[in-house]
C-alpha cells in the first residue's frame, strides 16, 4: 500500500560521480531520450548504475512497507466487529502481503533477490514507511488507517505508476486497483463510527488526533529540506515532490473529515487563496528519530517479522533444492 516520498537517500556525491563516470555516455543519452519520449524501461535494458540503485531501493522499501503494514492492522483481525468488517479486514491485510509479493518480484528484476531484501529488512539496513511504527490502539485506528493512510498511499502510488520502470508500473497498476477497495472499505468503516454513537465519535476523534502527525509525516520532509536529485525526476523514478503530494492529499481528504464534523489537531490547517494548504510543521526531528528505530513499535514490528521468518524456516528449507539457484523473474 505504501510508498512515501522521503525514501531516496542522498548519494555520496563523489561516489555518484564515480559511478556515473562509468556509465557509457552514448548509452546514457539513448536511455534518457527513451524516458523523455515516454517509453518504459524493461529489465534487460541498459540503465545507469544510479538508476538501478535508487529504483531497487524505492521498490524494495515499498515492498517492505506492505509487509510491515500488514502488522498494525493485523492487530485487529480477531477483534474486527461482525462478518462484513472482519472479512474486509482480513482481505485487506492479505492484499498488503500480496502487494509485497508483487513489489519484491518487480525489485528482483533489477537483480536483488528476495531473500537478500528480507535480510536487509530484518537487519534494519533497509527502511519501511514510518507510519507502521505506530500502534493501532483501538478499532477506530483501523478505520483511520484504512481510510487516510490508504488514501495517502494512493496519491503516492498513482504518481509512481506513471514512472519509467515497466515492472514497477505493472505492479502498481494492480496495486492501485486493489487500494481503491482498501480506501472504500476504510472510508465506510470510518463513516460508520463518525456518524454513530457519541462513544464511537469520540473513538474516531481520538484516533484522528493520534494519527494526524504520522499522516503529515507520510509524504516525507518538506521540499525545501530535501535536495532530491533532479536526475531522479528526469529519470521518472521520483514522480512528484513531497509537498505537492501532501497538498494533493490534504485537498482531497481534509474536507471529507470536516464534513463529518470531525476535527484535526492543527489550528493552522487551512487552504489559502492560491489553493495551497497551510499547516503547522510537524515535528521532523521525531520523524527522523522514528525512521532510525526509535518509534513506539519499531522493535515489536521487527521482532514479529523475525518470528515469522524463523518459524517458517523449516517449511522453506524442507522444500529447497539446488534447482532454486539464482533464478530471477523475467518481467
Amino acid at each position, binding site marked *: 500500500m505504501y510508498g512515501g516520498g522521503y525514501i531516496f537517500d542522498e548519494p555520496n556525491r563523489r561516489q555518484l560521480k564515480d559511478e556515473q563516470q562509468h556509465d557509457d555516455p552514448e548509452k546514457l543519452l539513448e536511455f534518457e531520450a527513451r524516458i523523455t519520449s515516454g517509453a518504459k524501461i524493461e529489465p534487460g535494458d541498459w540503465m545507469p548504475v544510479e538508476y538501478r540503485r535508487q529504483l531497487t531501493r524505492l521498490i524494495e522499501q515499498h515492498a517492505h512497507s506492505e*509487509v510491515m503494514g*500488514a*502488522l498494525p492492522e*493485523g492487530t*485487529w*483481525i*480477531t*477483534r*474486527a*466487529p*461482525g*462478518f462484513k*468488517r*472482519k*472479512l474486509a479486514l*482480513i*482481505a485487506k*491485510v*492479505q492484499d*498488503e*502481503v*500480496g502487494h*509485497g*509479493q508483487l513489489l*519484491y518480484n518487480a525489485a528482483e528484476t533489477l537483480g536483488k533477490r528476495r531473500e537478500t531484501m528480507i535480510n536487509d529488512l530484518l537487519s534494519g539496513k533497509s527502511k519501511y514507511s514510518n507510519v507502521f511504527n505506530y500502534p493501532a490502539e483501538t*478499532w477506530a485506528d483501523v478505520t483511520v488507517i484504512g481510510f487516510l493512510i490508504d488514501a495517502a498511499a494512493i496519491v503516492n502510488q498513482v504518481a509512481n505508476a506513471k514512472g519509467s520502470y515497466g515492472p514497477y508500473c505493472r505492479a502498481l497498476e494492480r496495486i492501485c486497483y486493489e487500494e481503491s477497495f482498501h480506501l472504500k472499505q476504510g472510508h465506510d*468503516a470510518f463513516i*460508520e*463510527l463518525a456518524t*454513530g*454513537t457519541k*462513544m*464511537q465519535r469520540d473513538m474516531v476523534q481520538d484516533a484522528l488526533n493520534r494519527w494526524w502527525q504520522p499522516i503529515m509525516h507520510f509524504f516525507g520532509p518538506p521540499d525545501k529540506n530535501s535536495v532530491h536529485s533532479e536526475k531522479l525526476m528526469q529519470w521518472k523514478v521520483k514522480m512528484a515532490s513531497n509537498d505537492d503530494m501532501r497538498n494533493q492529499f490534504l485537498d482531497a481528504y481534509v474536507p471529507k473529515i470536516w464534513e463529518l464534523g470531525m476535527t484535526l489537531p492543527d489550528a493552522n490547517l487551512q487552504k489559502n487563496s492560491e489553493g495551497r494548504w497551510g499547516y503547522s510543521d510537524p515535528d521532523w526531528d521525531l520523524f527522523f528519530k522514528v525512521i532510525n528505530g526509535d518509534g513506539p513499535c519499531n522493535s515489536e514490528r521487527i521482532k*514479529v517479522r523475525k*518470528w*515469522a521468518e524463523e*518459524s*517458517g*524456516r*523449516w*517449511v*522453506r528449507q*524442507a*522444500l529447497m533444492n539446488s534447482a532454486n539457484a539464482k533464478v530471477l523473474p523475467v518481467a
Partner: protein
Amino acid sequence: MQTNPLQQAITYLLTKMADDALILGHRNSEWTGLGPIMEEDIAFSSMAQDKIGHALGLYSILHETYHAPDPDQYAFLREEKDYLCCHLVELPIGEYDFSLMRHFLFDHADALRYEFMEKSSLEALRPLSKKLKGEIKYHTLHANAWLTQLCSAGDESYARMQSALDYCFPLALGMFERREEMEDRLMDEKIYPGEEQLKEAWLERIYPILVKSSLNLPDPVNTSPINGGRHGYHTQHLQPLLNEMSAVFRLDPTAKW
C-alpha cells in the same frame, strides 16, 4: 428459538458446522501476515476468509429459515457453552505443521459434509453446498499438495508431519462426536447421514493421501476421540478467543460497527 424437535436438530447441525468454520477461520486468519512464505500466506488467508464466509452462509440459513438471531449477533455474542465447535478447531495456531495437519484433517471432513448436504432431503441446505463446492475443492487440493510434498522432503519435515498427525488424530475424531437425540431425527428424515457414516467416508478419503505421504494413521478403533465440543464443553482456548471476537461489539452491542 427452536420450536419443534426437528427444527432443533437442524439448528444443532447447522450451528456445529458454522461454529467449526467460524472458529477455525479465525484461527487460520491469525497466520495472515505471518506465514512461512508470502505466497502461502496469501493462500492460507484466502482459505481462512472462505471459512468465515461459510460460517456466515450457514448462520444466514439459520436466521432466515430457522428463526435464529441475525448472523452477527448469533456468531459473536453467544455464551461459550452455546457454541458447538469441536476442540480441534479451538486450539491456537501452534506451529505450521500443526496448522497444516488440522487444515488437512478438517477440510476433508468438511468437503464430505457439504457433499452429503448437497444430497440432503432438506432443500434449504442444497444451494449453499453447491455454491461452496469449488472453494472447498481448492482447500483440499492445497492441503494434499502440502502434505505430500512436506512428507517427501526429508526427515525433519516428515517427522514433524507424522507427529502432527499423531497429535491431531484424537482431536479430529472429536469432529464426529455424536448427539444421538439430534442425529436420529436428522437421519430419520434423510437430512443427514450421521457422524458415524461421515467418519467412515472421511477415513476412506484421507487414507490414500496418507499412504502417498508414507504417514502412519493411528488406529482409529483404539484411539479415544477428544469429545465435548458438540455438547458445549470446550477447551481453555475458546473463551479467550470469543472475548476477542466480540471485544469491539461489546463496547456497545446496540451500535452499528
